[in-house]
């Protein structure tokens, strides 16, 4: 049995900002190696894990896509040993002052995001939030050392160590979307002892936070018959209590909206009910904000399902998740894949 906390801590221990997924890809590669029949890396860096089905050729293919990239920052300027930064992915600048980070220069340098004192900032800011362009990253090195080790374009990753909270909750950065990588890993583990007719392609995709680059390209290589996209969704919590937010730790989100094929939604709802896995319908009236936006429109089009793991404080370094929901998502995916019969695709159709 995989120790989920240990697995999460391991895949959270390295960076992998959008476009710079190398370090995390290596860890996932190592983790998936014993669980898959073959692993390959796409032209733009997504990791493809192949697990062969037992059915006769040609077999149907199901894709599970979990993006592995993280939000973070990039150095734009160096001034007197301090670095100015811009964002990679969406960051609320109000959470940045005081954040521990790692600057990936010629070497990895721990540092902190800092807010200069008021008299060094434009007066118009008053005591309001300080925009990112006025913040600095300080790595504690003297200016001559910094100019030797850091260049414009170097990436800056969050470095807050994960914290174990009560009730099997874990807080940390980049839980969006490493928790889905973990859930996919649990799914692969569960399938070691299950026979499945379809080929399974597990993908850790790149650049979801910026370009959907992985989502738009991996399905082109793989050509799946249907796809499960797993990502985090919004959990109820501080300042987030409307219809967009699901209860925390009380089940997975089943995405519902134009990115999702309704027949796939129905199949997942039925499966969750049969297995008594708690779930909530996660309404996505316009778009899902996930890899599904890319996967759905690859080649001739691919029927997609979106699964969500409820997460509090998304895109902060203290994102909080319930391990129970990760396990539920992993199990639901494994059961769904294992139960796909050779002719299952016939049920995925439009009502006409």
């Amino acid at each position, binding site marked *: 049995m995989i120790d989920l906390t240990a697995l999460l801590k391991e895949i959270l221990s390295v960076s992998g900002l959008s476009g710079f997924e190398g370090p995390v890809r290596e860890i996932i590669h190592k983790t998936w190696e014993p669980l898959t029949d073959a692993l390959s890396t796409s032209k733009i860096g997504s990791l493809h894990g192949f697990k062969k089905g037992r059915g006769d050729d040609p077999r149907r293919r199901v894709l599970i896509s979990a993006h592995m990239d993280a939000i973070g920052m990039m150095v734009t300027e160096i001034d*007197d040993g*301090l670095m100015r930064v811009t964002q990679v992915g*969406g*960051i*609320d*600048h*109000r*959470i*940045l*002052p*005081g*954040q*521990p980070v790692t600057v990936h220069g010629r070497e990895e340098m721990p*540092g*902190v995001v*800092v*807010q*200069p*004192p008021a008299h*060094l*900032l*434009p007066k118009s800011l008053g*005591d*309001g*939030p*300080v925009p990112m362009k006025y913040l*600095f990253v*300080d*790595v*504690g*090195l*003297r*200016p*001559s*050392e910094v100019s030797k080790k850091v260049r414009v374009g170097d990436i800056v990753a969050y470095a807050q160590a994960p*914290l174990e*909270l*009560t*009730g*099997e*909750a874990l*807080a940390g950065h980049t839980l969006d979307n490493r928790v889905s990588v973990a859930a996919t890993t649990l799914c692969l583990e569960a399938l070691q002892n299950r026979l499945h007719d379809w080929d399974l392609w597990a993908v850790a995709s790149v650049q979801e936070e910026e370009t959907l680059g992985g989502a738009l390209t991996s399905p082109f290589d793989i050509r799946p018959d249907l796809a499960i996209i797993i990502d985090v969704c*919004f959990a109820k*919590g*501080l*300042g*987030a209590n409307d219809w*967009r937010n699901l209860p*925390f*730790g009380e089940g997975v989100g089943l995405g519902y909206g134009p990115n999702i094929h309704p027949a796939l939604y129905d199949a997942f709802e039925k499966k969750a009910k049969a297995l008594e896995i708690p779930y909530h319908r996660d309404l996505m009236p316009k778009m899902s*904000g996930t890899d599904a936006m890319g996967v759905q429109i690859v080649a001739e089009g691919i029927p997609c399902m979106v699964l969500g793991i409820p997460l*509090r*404080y*998304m*895109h*902060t*370094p*203290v994102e*909080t998740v*319930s391990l129970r929901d990760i396990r539920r998502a992993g199990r639901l995916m494994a059961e769904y894949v294992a139960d796909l019969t050779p002719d299952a695709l016939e049920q995925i159709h439009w009502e006409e």
Partner: protein
Amino acid sequence: MSKNREVSTNHVPEIDTQPIQLLEKLCNASAVSGDEHEVRQIVLEEVSPLGDEVKVDALGNVLVKRLGQRKNRVRVMLAAHMDEIGLMIVKKHDNSLFEFDLVGGIDERQLPGKSVLVGRDHLPGVIGAKPIHMTTTKERKNKIPVSSMRIDLGPEIGDRVKPGDRATFATRFEILGPSICAKALDNRFGVAILIELLRHPPDTIDLLLAFTVQEEVGLRGARVAAYTFDPDMAVAVDSTPAYDLPHWDEEDENVQYNTRLDGGPAIYTMDRATIADRRLVYWLAETAQDEGIPWQLRQPGGGGTDAGAIHKVRSGIPSISVSVPSRYAHTAAGIARLDDWANTQRLLQAALARLTPDLLSGEQRG
């Protein structure tokens, strides 16, 4: 401000691993004003074998006497506050999230998205923030008020946290090249320096060490400690901000840097609470010159130290402050130079060793 000049590092003293380990322990301990227990325990452990007399007073100050051998000894009080800024839990809400208030001068913009440790058991929690996806551009132009922030310790925290519990930033002490990055360097530097002085006490004076409480909320500990000691003079040892960052507008010079990293110990002439005794300013500055210790004058202005309370106790006590410069005080993570700390230690050691009653017999030099 001109760009920060880099000092040659050849002459700078190394710090032994023992004081670094002690500073690490002190910084990682929680001691929000009014609940200094953890730091007090560490201090007592360190000073008990070394002091001639050690006691904890009514407010929780640790008072240590170490008497010299010579005749006509000056009775010198050195004060370093043990407390740090932090948070107090004030209310548990239905959703298992905790409301909190600020203890000491904290800029609330430093709080969202930080991890904290709550209570004596250091239970981990986080101060969450609304996902950016659910905020509007207009909303992001306003700061998040502390009244709407909550600490989340997970759904099954139950009764393990109660209103009244204190919380600190969860930052752990780290060495970054020539620097230290930690919470509460204000003022664990001072605490560590006083302990080290007690390890190498000058024989020429009576050393009266006050490890004080409640500096961050009103200099309360220092006031009563000074009354108890009734010293001839006092030095507050603290940590002061280095605002030595570039101005946002490159055309503009930063003329209010307060102190600079790598500039050495910051000697005070005046802050909002104290006008330093001039004789003591010269005493420290001349010692630094004679000993070749880098030093700087803290720019006169705001802020205050324990000296603000001490100098007005009884019929008045000649006082001064000296600080280790540190960036980003009162936030989750300050950054300071190991060298500035070592040089502050050296300066005090040397200045106390050469201190005679003559210093205080003369008129204040103008």
